[in-house]
C-alpha cells in the first residue's frame, strides 16, 4: 500500500516540479534584455524536452553504434568483427529471413483484413457497426504479453490421451488429423506464421478504424453516380471507394510495417526465439540479457536501425505531404 502513496506523492511532486521548472526557465528568460528575450523565449519551452531526447534517445543511439565495433565487454575495439560474425552465422541469416517474412506477410494481411472489416461494417447499420468494431478493435488494449498468453492457449498442445484444450488442435482432430505441438514446427516457417497471426489479430482493429474513417469521408455523390451507372457493390468498392482511400491504406501499411520490423515481445513470450522463430529485436535481447555480449548485441540492433532508416525517410515524406495539405 505504501507504494500507492509513493506513486501519488511522486505525481504531485512531478507535476509541481515540472510546473516550477518551466516557471523558473521562463523567469530566467524574462530577466534578459528585450531583444535577447524575444530571440530566446523558445528555450524556456523546448529545453527540457531536448535534454531528455538527447540524453535518453540520441546520445545512446550513437553509443550503441560505437559499441557495435567493440568486444563482448565493450572494452576493446574489434573493427567489423561483430558484423562479420553475424553475417557468416547461418542462424543470424535465418533471423534476417524471419524478419523479412514478418515484413512481407503481416502488413499486407493486416491491411487487407482491416479494409474488408471497414467496408463490411459500413453496410450493417450504425448500431451493429459500433458493436462489431469494438470487438475487433478490443485487442488494441491488450498487451503483447497477454495477447501471447491468449494465443498460446489457442495453440496449446496436450500429450496424447488427454482432452484437448487448444482450439486449433481440437479443430485439427475434428478433421481427423493428429494434434500437433504447433509452435515447435518450423517446417516452412509454420510456427513463425502462427506468431504473425497474433500481431495481425492485434493490429487489424487499428487498420479497420483508420480506413473506416477514410471510407466514411468518401463523398456520397461519387457512390451514387456509380450506382446510377449500374455498377455492382464490388465494382463500386474497387473503382470508386478504394482509389479514394488508397492514401490512408498506404499510411496504415507503413505504420504496421514499422511496428513489425521491431517485433519482439510476442517472440519472447511464445517461443523465446526457439524453433527457428527468432527475429532481430529478440536476438538483441538474447545477446545482451542472456549472454551479456554488449558488442554483438549492439551490432544486431545497429543492423535493425540500418534496415529501418529507409522507413524513416518514408515517414518524413508522409509527414511533409500532410504538412502541405494543411
Amino acid at each position: 500500500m505504501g507504494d500507492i502513496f509513493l506513486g501519488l506523492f511522486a505525481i504531485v511532486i512531478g507535476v509541481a516540479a515540472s510546473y516550477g521548472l518551466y516557471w523558473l526557465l521562463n523567469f530566467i528568460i524574462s530577466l534578459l534584455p528585450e531583444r535577447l528575450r524575444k530571440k530566446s523565449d523558445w528555450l524556456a519551452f523546448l529545453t527540457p524536452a531536448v535534454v531528455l531526447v538527447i540524453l535518453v534517445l540520441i546520445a545512446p543511439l550513437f553509443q550503441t553504434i560505437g559499441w557495435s565495433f567493440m568486444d563482448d565487454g565493450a572494452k576493446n575495439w574489434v573493427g567489423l568483427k561483430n558484423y562479420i560474425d553475424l553475417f557468416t552465422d547461418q542462424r543470424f541469416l535465418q533471423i534476417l529471413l524471419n524478419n523479412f517474412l514478418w515484413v512481407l506477410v503481416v502488413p499486407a494481411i493486416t491491411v487487407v483484413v482491416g479494409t474488408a472489416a471497414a467496408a463490411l461494417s459500413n453496410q450493417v447499420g450504425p448500431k451493429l457497426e459500433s458493436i462489431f468494431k469494438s470487438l475487433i478493435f478490443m485487442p488494441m488494449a491488450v498487451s503483447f504479453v497477454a495477447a501471447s498468453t491468449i494465443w498460446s492457449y489457442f495453440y496449446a498442445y496436450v500429450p496424447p490421451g488427454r482432452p484437448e484444450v487448444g482450439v486449433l488442435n481440437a479443430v485439427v482432430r475434428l478433421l481427423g488429423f493428429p494434434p500437433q505441438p504447433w509452435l515447435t514446427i518450423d517446417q516452412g516457417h509454420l510456427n513463425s506464421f502462427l506468431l504473425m497471426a497474433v500481431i495481425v489479430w492485434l493490429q487489424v482493429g487499428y487498420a479497420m478504424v483508420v480506413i473506416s474513417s477514410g471510407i466514411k469521408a468518401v463523398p456520397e455523390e461519387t457512390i451514387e453516380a456509380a450506382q446510377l451507372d449500374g455498377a455492382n457493390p464490388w465494382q463500386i468498392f474497387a473503382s470508386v471507394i478504394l482509389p479514394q482511400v488508397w492514401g490512408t491504406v498506404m499510411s496504415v501499411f507503413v505504420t504496421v510495417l514499422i511496428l513489425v520490423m521491431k517485433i519482439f515481445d510476442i517472440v519472447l513470450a511464445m517461443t523465446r526465439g526457439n524453433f527457428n522463430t527468432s527475429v532481430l529485436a529478440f536476438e538483441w535481447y538474447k545477446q545482451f540479457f542472456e549472454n551479456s555480449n554488449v558488442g554483438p548485441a549492439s551490432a544486431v540492433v545497429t543492423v535493425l536501425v540500418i534496415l529501418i532508416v529507409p522507413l524513416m525517410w518514408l515517414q518524413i515524406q508522409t509527414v511533409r505531404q500532410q504538412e502541405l495539405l494543411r
Partner: protein
Amino acid sequence: MSKILHLLRNLKLGSLLGMIILVVIWSTPTLGLLITSLRPSSLADISPWWEALFNPLSTLWTLDAYQNSLSSGMLDSLINTIAVTIPATILPLMIAANAAYAFTFLNFKGKEFFFAVLVALMVIPLQSSLIPVLRGMVWFQKAVGIPLTGTYASAWVVHSAFAMPLAIYILRNYMMTLPRELIEAAKVDGASNYQIFWQLVLPVSVPALASFAIFQFLWVWNDYLIAFIFVGEQKAVMTYRLLRLLGQYGQGWRDVAAGSFISLIIPLIVFFALQRYFVRGLLAGSVKG
C-alpha cells in the same frame, strides 16, 4: 426496382455474415482464456473450455483463480504497474505540451530541422538506446551513490523520453489548428508566453492531451521491456509476472488465464470508456513501437 432492393438486401446480409465470421474469429481466443479463468481447477485441466460454453448452467463458475492470483503477487504487481504508469503518462504530457507550444507559436533557428529529427525518431527502435541508458544509470549509481535502476523513477524518465517524439507531434498538430489571432491578441495585451501557454493554449488543448494520455497510458501499462530492464523483479509489473507465469510449464492454464485478465481489466475499462479519444488520437497518427 425490386432487383436493386434484392441486391441491397443480399449485400447487407452478406456483409452481416462476413462481419459475424470475423468477430467470432477475433473473439474466440480471448473467450477461451476468459472461460478457463472462471472454471474450477478440477475441471479446467481435464476438460476443454467450450464444454463450459455449451453447458453454461450445469458448469460451476468460480472466482478462485482470481483470488489465488491476486494473493500470490498479482495484487502487488497491479500496484507496481499503477505506480509506473500514471507518472509515466503525466510527465511526458507536460514536457511535450511545452515543447509543442514552442514548435507551434514561437520562431527560432533550425525549427524545421528539429522537427524533422523528431519525426525521424518516431521510427527508431527503442532497443537501440536501452543498453547505454542502462549502463549510464549504473555508472551514475556508482559515481554518485543514488540508485536509479530498480526504481520507478528510472522507468518514468525512459518512458517520458520515448514518448517525446510522438507526443510533441500530436500536440503540435492540434495546436496548429488553434486560431493564431487569439495568441497574437493576448501578446498585444502584454501577456507573457508563460501565461499564454498555461491560461490559453493548455486549457483548449484538452482533447489532444486526452488522446495522447490514453495512448501513453495503454502503452506504458502494456510495456514489458522497459519495466523489465529498469524496474525489474523487485517491483515486478504485471506484464513481467505474467511472462514468468507463462514460462512455468505445468503451472496450469487457469492461473495464467486469471493473471492475464487481471492485467487486462484496467486497460479495457480505460479503452472502452475513452474509445472516442483514442480513435481520434489514432487518426492523428499516434502509433509507436
